[in-house]
């Protein structure tokens, strides 16, 4: 029996908490907004004053139902609200309104694209809606502050089955979920703003000598970046394996059960957290202040109809119908509006490939600079279609098109007007181009010689002369015409 006979299978389940982008909070009409000064979006309901009552936000329920439907879950016809009790200063009522035994959505799945181009089905156990807690602020030595702007913000908790078996799968699932909730328009899913938080459950199934050993399940709470998630899972796989090697019989799920660990961002390690024994008794019971939610077939199907094409289906369509590469199609399906922009431009008669190039070239660069999506850059479908058509028709060349795209994003207008005003329309007037060609030939005798001699540097020299002509034209010469005239004048077959 050797170490090489040992197989290690990580088993990971993930809870993802998604803050929903509703206008107001879950049970009061305070604004749901991140980043304002502490305690500026609070009212008697969300700070838990005596005698006030929660009133359900229907939009939050609809957003949650959309996610459930998009995850192929069963969206229950009857669901209710429960109180989850624990004492913490950022939880003003000292109970959280949540859903215990009857979640809004259950038993679904998500098709997750993996880095190798395949997909894996990760099952979703349940997705329930609850209110978020506030935040404790430890910025002073003397005391802890409490900011309740976040208290009562609707939070969707999506719990997967333990179907992930590698770090890459966990990350891919988390990213696919981020893309889905953005796609559905139910959350900005901005990690910096805490819109998404992760809680992985990790253990190892180790087979050695025909026996399978299971390490204790470890839960790590409150990870708020993909990096933290990645490092946590990777660290746990290593740590659990090491602990198991040290004590294969003792370090087992049967003997230790479940552990809670915290993630330390400095070291990338997880540390053991002692939990008080009463911490797990949340004393759930139905909230008597809220009526159960009855979901009619009509309500459910109305929301299902709004969902439309999901990201993976759209990506496949772009590869199939628009002949885009996997990478291009994937990049254009990160959010729904960017793909919608592409589809609208194509419907307007533009070539898909040219539109994709524009969007993924200057579009992606501007979006990256501004920290927005490509669709939010400010170029509308009509502008995109017109520009792509000008490219196809040789009215502008690629360099000019990029410049026009930037101008459109900055100041708007029609592509043709911008091209005219900026002198970017392609010059296809043979006389004008002929003059530039003559000038380039005269100035570069060595290159001319190389082309004419037909040697192995012929190709390179011809390209150099093309570039010189383009430079002389300020990028405006129609490349096809330049090439034709150069060939004619040099008598080359190139």
């Amino acid at each position, binding site marked *: 029996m050797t170490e090489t006979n040992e197989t290690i299978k990580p088993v990971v389940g993930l809870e993802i908490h998604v803050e929903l982008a509703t206008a107001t909070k879950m049970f009061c009409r305070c604004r749901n907004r991140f980043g304002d000064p502490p305690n500026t979006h609070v009212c008697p309901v969300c700070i838990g*004053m005596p005698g006030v009552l929660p009133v359900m936000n229907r939009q939050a329920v609809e957003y949650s139902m959309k996610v459930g439907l998009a995850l192929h879950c069963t969206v229950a016809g009857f669901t209710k609200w429960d109180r989850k009790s624990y004492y913490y200063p950022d939880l003003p009522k000292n109970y959280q309104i949540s859903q215990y035994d009857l979640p809004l959505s259950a038993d679904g799945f998500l098709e997750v694209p993996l880095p190798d181009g395949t997909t894996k089905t990760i099952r979703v156990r349940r997705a329930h809606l609850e209110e978020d807690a506030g935040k404790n602020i430890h910025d002073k030595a003397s005391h802890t502050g409490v900011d309740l702007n976040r208290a009562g913000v609707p939070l969707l908790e999506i719990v997967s089955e333990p179907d992930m078996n590698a770090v890459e799968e966990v990350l891919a699932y988390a990213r696919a979920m981020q893309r889905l909730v953005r796609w559905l328009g139910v959350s900005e899913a901005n990690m910096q703003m805490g819109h998404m938080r992760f809680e992985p459950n990790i253990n190892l199934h180790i087979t050695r000598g025909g026996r399978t050993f299971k390490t204790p399940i470890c839960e790590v709470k409150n990870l708020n970046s993909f990096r933290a998630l990645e490092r946590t899972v990777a660290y746990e796989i290593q740590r659990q394996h090491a602990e198991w090697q040290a004590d294969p019989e003792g370090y087992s799920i049967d003997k230790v059960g479940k552990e809670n660990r915290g993630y330390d961002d400095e070291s990338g390690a997880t540390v053991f957290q002692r939990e008080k024994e009463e911490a797990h008794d949340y004393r759930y*019971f139905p909230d008597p*202040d809220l009526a159960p939610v009855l979901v009619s077939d009509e309500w459910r199907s109305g929301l299902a109809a709004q969902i439309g094409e999901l990201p993976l289906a759209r990506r496949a369509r772009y590869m199939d119908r628009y002949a885009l590469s996997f990478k291009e199609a994937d990049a254009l399906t990160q959010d729904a509006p960017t793909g919608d922009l592409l589809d609208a431009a194509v419907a307007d008669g533009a070539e898909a490939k040219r539109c994709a190039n524009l969007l993924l070239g200057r579009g992606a660069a501007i979006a990256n600079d501004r920290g927005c999506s490509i669709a939010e850059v400010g170029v509308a479908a009509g502008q995109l279609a017109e520009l792509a058509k000008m490219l196809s028709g040789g009215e502008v060349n690629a360099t000019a098109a990029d410049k026009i795209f930037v101008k459109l994003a900055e100041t708007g207008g029609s592509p043709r007007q911008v091209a005219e005003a900026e002198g970017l329309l392609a010059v296809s007037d043979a006389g004008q181009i002929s003059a530039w060609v003559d000038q380039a030939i005269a100035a570069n005798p060595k290159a001319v010689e190389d082309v004419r001699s037909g040697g192995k540097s012929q190709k390179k020299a011809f390209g150099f002369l093309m570039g010189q002509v383009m430079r002389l034209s300020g990028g405006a010469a129609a490349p096809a015409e330049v090439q034709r005239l150069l060939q004619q004048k040099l008598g080359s077959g190139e």
Partner: protein
Amino acid sequence: MTAILDLSAVELRDAISRGELSAVEAARAYLAAIEKTEPQVQAFNEVHADRALGRAAQIDADRAAGKPPGPLAGVPLAVKDNLCMTHGRTTCSSKMLADFRAPYTATAVAKLEDAGAVILGKTNLDEFAMGSSTENSGFRPTRNPWDLSRVPGGSSGGSAAAVAARQCAAALGSDTGGSIRQPAAFCGIVGLKPTYGRVSRFGLVAYGSSLDQIGPLTRDVTDAALLTRAIAGHDERDSTSVPRDVPDYLASVDKPIEGLRVGLPGEFFSDALDAEIGAAIRAAAGAYESAGAKLVDVSLPHSRIDRDADGKLSSYAVACYYIVAMAEASSNLARYDGVHYGHRTAGKVEDIVELFSRSRAEGFGPEVKRRIMLGSYTLSAGYYDAYYNKALKVRRLIQNDFDRAFEACDVILAPASPTPAFRLGEKTSDPLTMYLADIYTISVNLAGLPGLTVPAALGRDGLPIGMQLIGPVFSEETLFRAARMYEQAGGVRRLTPPAMAP
């Protein structure tokens, strides 16, 4: 002055609307009465004299300016101190909230004020409405105006005593297990626990949220109809309030019900009941029969009251009630932790857990602590099914009993309490005995039904005896008419405690 205090709320409203009396005169008369009798009765936590006079003056000015008077124009009322008002404090008679000022007003109180009522102040209660005698007040007990050595009942004991002592024309209370009806019975007045969902609970500090309901305490049935009409209706701030039209109870209250079927539940007339009370209620049943009503025997098996070998009373309904109410209370009262508002310990604390526990230990009285502990226990892992879940099943059986009973009758006639008002201190050493004071009222809360108590008779020792009429959900109109039939058929009406008589 005497004449003013003799008027019912409806009569006051009419006199003020006609200009025979000013709202300021009415408010002054009641403020004077409070000043005179409050040292003995101690019904109020806070009297808002200046604000009351100001609002009364406004109502007079509005009338002078030709504005149509509201349905409660100038009627001086008292409000139980677990109903929030932006004016003054809302204490729940607890040290925990001794200085709490709410930035909102309870919907029921706001509706009364919109109707022209003048709020005189806030009345005492058992701390957080937990009790049946007002002795659990964190401040002081209130006395029964009929006999100052006796309790006024509870938890709305301050409101009941204030109405009986003529310190106000009427009052609001809240009823979770009998907290309006039992003190009304002890003080010889009328009290209604409306159907669950009939009145918004917004601004009522929660005790048992699935049981709590705000209702009126009044001198007669007509006044109860007037106040109920004013406070009832859907409120978008309370999801459990029901969107359903509110009938004009006052318009129909004097119309007797032809062929009224009065149900008598055998389970309520066992030897657990004080003999004199039993006799009074049977006499009332007789009065109904003479007025043309039909008496029917009905059965409420799960509300049955048993007496064990030691002579102690027990009932499924009481057990069920205390599990449900305490579970909800343990959760509702979790928010009082000294962090955001309310009492915070002045002592030095090591950490947040000590801040929580010391603030709560200092702020809550013994009965509140007992209920929080019991409620937390019944909701705990491993005990939930044995207690809370079982209680919910019993609750369903109790509801089913009532549904079946109302197939055979229109209203159920029942006692309001097993005994008349008891003496201060008589039951404080034995919480279980105290809980049995609610034995005839709690199944009504568990079933979400309306229950109305009216004075049935005066007992031999000069204490009022109350009786209770129970109807199906949203049958308040029937209850008022049926109760009014009893008043008209020679029952007692507008009893005045001798000590409080002018």
